[in-house]
């Protein structure tokens, strides 16, 4: 049995996440994203690799979306409505609620503002979302008889999940995007210690290690404060959900504390609408927010107002959250065009910007002019501030998660190739786990765990559950170890289920009669000095424990002694049949009649030899 991991998107790059994993014959697709930096057919994963005929229903058992970002859900309406996938689609409750907003917003930007041909319509989005089955955290869903899936909290955005999938005995986790530290409105990723054959992890920040977030928060607040205090306008291009709420909570708090009266705006109704969803989905936010929400819902921002287009040229300072992020199109780009030339103003870019966007250009170097998509150039004289709080885990987080889960194999996706390669080296050398970094279209195959099933007899189970304690006195303290090993016999009969029995039961299962093979010898022993029979047995037992290494427990009673299956008793007969060679003429010689089973063969010979030496 094997697990095949086919990377359709986000292999050695960021964007259009899509991984298809085949576990014991079941195909599961994780994420169905779109590449924000591509305009051509490359923006979607290449679904044709999966099925040439386009019959996806019979190819894929289910599709699971981890969170509502476009690079994870963007291709979903295309895949279900245009490509015709009709199978089950799973996503968390918040993702199901918020994805349509994101998709619709993106569609509008693409069609209305950039004038592109429609890839999917509003009706497509609606009918696609109808097929979605909502998931709750930790809820274990039996997709079909063999396939089981479960979602864990990932903390990246509201409703982001990591997905555990299990077929038979083989199990994997696909992390989606995750964050290992708590931020203001979301908790840190949380997962059980699972036995995994494969972990597929994101690696956006494969080489970055971040310190505390507080200095970064302070830096950001100071930059914005300085800008508005100087009468400038601060533009924060961000997507409607996620960083917008996080930064807004931060600013709203700061505004309260510092008693600042400068307005904070949200550019679109989308963010306002999104805040309403956030209020209902409190159970998916951080512990802090959950505790506070009864008295004051933290998503009721006190200083935040709606923004109108006319306010772009209004005098006076303000802070504006404008969609979309990365300055890739739409309203944020339009505002940027007007505000960038003034040195008073500030553009604060939160999070990651995909290559090809204006955001990416601003971040890489300090350009004085920037080309917009339609060919116009804009002078950039405003300040640029990169807000370094990303909802992605850093390299330490990836290592921590990997260490915690200790999967048998790991596949890295959703990152930049050079840093992924160095993380791969780190994982293989430090943790000794095989690590793969496949490119788009490549498949990684790993072996999967399997268990052979058998019926066990009661006697076997009973003996297995009896502890076998061994006590040993190490220098200072007594150590107790349980040295039990399950010792049984596996019996298979043609066309029947295998059976595990205790060795005493084998013959019964085979309908045979036991035949005991044992060894016997009536061994002469010499009496040292004057001692009675009991004393002789004592002497012998001391001798045995001195010379025979594996004889740990010697039981003595009257004229008998026993070690394991070895039994010896003083022989009173004149002529014992088990006595060979030596006659009983010598009065100083007594005989120990011994009997031991095959299991203790070495032990028996050891004792016999010890007693012979005594002669």
């Amino acid at each position, binding site marked *: 049995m094997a697990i095949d991991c086919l990377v359709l998107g986000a292999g050695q790059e960021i964007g259009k996440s899509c991984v298809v994993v085949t576990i014991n014959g079941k195909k599961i697709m994780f994420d169905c994203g779109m590449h924000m930096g591509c305009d051509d057919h490359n923006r979607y994963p290449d679904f044709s690799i999966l099925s040439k005929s386009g019959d996806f229903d019979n190819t894929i058992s289910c599709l699971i979306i981890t969170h509502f970002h476009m690079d994870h859900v963007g291709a979903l309406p295309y895949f279900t409505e245009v490509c015709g996938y009709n199978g089950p689609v799973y996503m968390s409750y918040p993702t199901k609620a918020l994805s349509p907003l994101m998709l619709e917003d993106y569609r509008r930007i693409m069609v209305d503002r950039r004038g592109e041909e429609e890839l999917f319509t509003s009706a497509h989005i609606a009918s696609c979302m109808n097929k979605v089955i909502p998931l709750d955290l930790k809820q274990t869903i039996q997709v079909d008889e063999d396939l089981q899936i479960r979602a864990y909290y990932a903390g990246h955005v509201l409703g982001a999940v990591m997905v555990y999938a299990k077929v038979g005995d083989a199990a994997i986790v696909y992390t989606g995007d995750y964050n290992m530290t708590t931020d203001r409105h979301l908790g840190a990723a949380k997962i059980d210690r699972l036995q995994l054959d494969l972990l597929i992890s994101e690696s956006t920040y494969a080489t970055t290690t971040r310190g505390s977030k507080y200095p970064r928060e302070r830096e950001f607040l100071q930059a914005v404060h300085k800008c508005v205090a100087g009468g400038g306008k601060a533009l924060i291009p961000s997507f409607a959900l996620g960083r917008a709420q996080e930064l807004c909570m931060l600013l709203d708090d700061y505004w309260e504390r510092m008693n600042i009266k400068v307005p904070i705006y949200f550019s679109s109704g989308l963010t306002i609408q999104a805040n309403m969803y956030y209020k209902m989905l409190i159970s998916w936010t951080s512990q802090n927010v959950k505790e506070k929400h009864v008295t004051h819902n933290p998503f009721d921002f006190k200083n935040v107002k709606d923004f109108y287009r006319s306010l772009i040229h209004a005098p006076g300072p303000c802070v504006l959250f404008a969609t979309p992020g990365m300055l890739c199109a739409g309203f944020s780009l339009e505002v940027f065009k007007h505000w960038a030339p003034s040195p008073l103003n500030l553009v604060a870019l939160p999070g990651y910007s995909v290559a090809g966007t204006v955001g990416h250009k601003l971040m890489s170097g300090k350009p004085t002019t920037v080309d917009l998509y339609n060919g116009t150039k804009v002078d950039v004289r405003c300040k640029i501030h990169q807000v370094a709080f990303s909802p992605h885990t850093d390299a330490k987080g990836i290592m921590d998660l990997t260490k915690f889960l200790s999967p048998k194999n790991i596949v890295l996706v959703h990152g930049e190739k050079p840093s992924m390669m160095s993380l791969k080296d780190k994982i293989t050398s430090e943790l000794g786990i095989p690590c793969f970094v496949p490119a788009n279209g490549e498949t990684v195959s790993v072996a999967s765990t399997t268990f052979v099933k058998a019926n066990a007899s009661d006697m076997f189970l009973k003996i297995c559950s009896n502890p076998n304690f061994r006590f040993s006195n190490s220098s200072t303290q007594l150590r107790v170890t349980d040295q039990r090993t399950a010792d049984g*016999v596996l019996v298979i009969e043609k066309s029947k289920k295998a059976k595990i029995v205790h060795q005493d039961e084998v013959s019964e299962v085979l309908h045979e009669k036991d035949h005991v093979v044992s060894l016997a010898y009536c061994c002469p022993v010499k009496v040292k000095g004057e001692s009675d029979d009991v004393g002789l047995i004592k002497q012998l037992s001391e001798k045995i424990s001195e010379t025979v290494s594996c004889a740990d427990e010697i039981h003595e009673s009257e004229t008998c002694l026993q070690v394991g299956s070895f039994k010896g008793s003083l022989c009173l007969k004149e002529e014992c049949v088990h006595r060979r060679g030596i006659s009983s003429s010598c009065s100083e010689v007594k005989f120990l009649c011994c009997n031991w089973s095959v299991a203790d063969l070495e032990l028996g010979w050891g004792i016999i030899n010890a007693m012979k030496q005594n002669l």
Partner: protein
Amino acid sequence: MELTCLSKGDGFHYPPCHMLNLSGFRILIDCPLDLLALTIFSPLPCDVGIEAYGQNDQNPIQKKQKLERQMTPDDLVCAEPWYKTVKALHLWEASLIDIVLISNPMGLLGLPFLTQHPRFCAKIYMTEATAKIGQLMMEDLVSMHMEFKRFHGPEDSSFPCWTKNLDGEEVPGVLKNLVFGENGDDLGSWMRLYSLDDVKSCMKKVQAVKFSEEVCYNGTLIIKALSSGLDIGACNWLINGPNGSLSYVSDSIFVSHHSKFFDFHGLKGTDVMIYSGFSCLQTAEMTENDCISTMSDKKDERLAASLLDNEESLGELEKLAFVCSCAAESADAGGSTLITITRVGIVLQLLELMSDSIESSSLKVPIFVISSVAEELLAYTNTIPEWLCEQRQEKLISGEPSFGHLKFIKDKKIHLFPAIHSPNLITSWQEPCIVFAPHWSLRLGPSVQLLQRWRGDPRSLLVLEDGISSGLGLLPFRPISMKILQCSFLSGIRLQKLPTLLSLLQPKIVLVPDVINQRINLSTMKTKSILSYSENKTLSVGRIAENADVEIMAELATKLSWKKLRQRENFGVARLKGDFVMENGKQRLVSGLDQEESSGKARTLRHWGSVAPETLLESLVKMSVTGSIEHRRDENGAEGKSIIYITDPSGGMIETSEMGTTIITDDETLASKIFQAIDGILDGI
């Protein structure tokens, strides 16, 4: 497996309580309080000055006559109330309980009594919603009880002093029955109420789960909560262990308008099913003609469809609408409505419907919700879409709040107050009005004062929980001229749906309460066996699965060295050595320490069959061992032992019979040669 039904409970507010012994673990299912028993206490008088003194000068003769006449409010116990717990639970040692499963908020109310116990150490599981709502209900109970404490003053005695006047002749039988029980041994089940700290420390011990979340207890039992539809967060339990699967199904509702539906698909095909839906017995509706026999051939989907018909749920909606219309009528006439129902789902629906109907009519009636936890509870219920029915989940998708009350609270149509003496209450108070106030027992909370205020007003309306008016409930408020509406809402599976449910779930063994088994003929079911259990009796069920499954790790299985048997070609045997582990409810054999040595050339330790001495000597001769055979007969003259005397290379002897073979020699090499020869003749392992 063993099941002991500790209490069959009484309707929605007093769910049944069971003790289960499964795979050696003791599991307590639910820990409720019998709050109906509170009605033996008299509520706090509204105006102490007049009423309390006016009625005390009755002479003893009059008291005696009460036996024959009706009970009066004076018969009730005037003391700080104690609370009645499940009696049989006190007979169990708290430290021996391993697991506590709580199915709904009602089943949680008695838990602090158990967790107070210093040696209590069980793991407690319940759904997140049950934990939250249940905690709020307990906090509300404690805060309502505070009024009594303030009135009666501190009482530190751990002895229920209030019972000392209750064993007299003149005390009415109804009262005695409630206090002492039918057998007179219930006194020990009365407890003083826990404190807020007790509630907190109890809740700290709880592990909250989601629906369908699998939790593993001790590596052995996999426990899963599945929605029961009874109320928000209420659940049935599915327990999987190495010895088979068990489902616990209590009162459930197929189609609900507030909580997630009864998830019965997840309960299919278990080995044992414990059915504990007692509330169907309260509504006697099953008739002889109800046809159940024809259902056995139907397909699963059709069975499921017949369970999910919405006739029931429409009936529930009608009841709710009726309550609303009655309230509106009273308001029209200038009377107020007091609603004492505290079932969360029903209250939420009523609030929504009431506000809607008031909004659409010309009436301007304010709605008050008076409860110490109203604000938190109503805020909470709008943040849990995952726990609600599909229609309400749809609302989340379209961005609307799950329950409509949020908007009305904002518009000041619904007013929330923590208590009747809240400072702002008097300023916004206006009659007629509609008030939602606990407690349904009419002994605690703001409902008492309001009832005392309005009881003489024939225009006003009192909406009660089912069953409260038949007992002592209304006694302290008589004479009462208010209109009274007693609502019985669906609180379980109807009896006639039980056979369909069972034929759909197809458990191997079903355990049903004896009372149900008497009422309905289940013998036609596909289920293999139906056992009935009774209160306070232990029912043992033998093992269901034939042999326990053990999983052998593939790496271990490939290392095995197989032996072909000479006598039986169909068989293969191999020695198996490994570490036996129990994880996730599965018994597993994984590679152990001494696996390596045993997989090599191990000595044969067990033999079977018999040895013919001639054959043995023949093969010995091949190994250049020579000897002679002597046959010996036993006393009966039958073939007995044979002895082979070995002469070369050294002295030795072999005794062989049907039972076994003994090698007698002190020469190790000779012994191993003989052993080798026997190995060549006999099958062994």
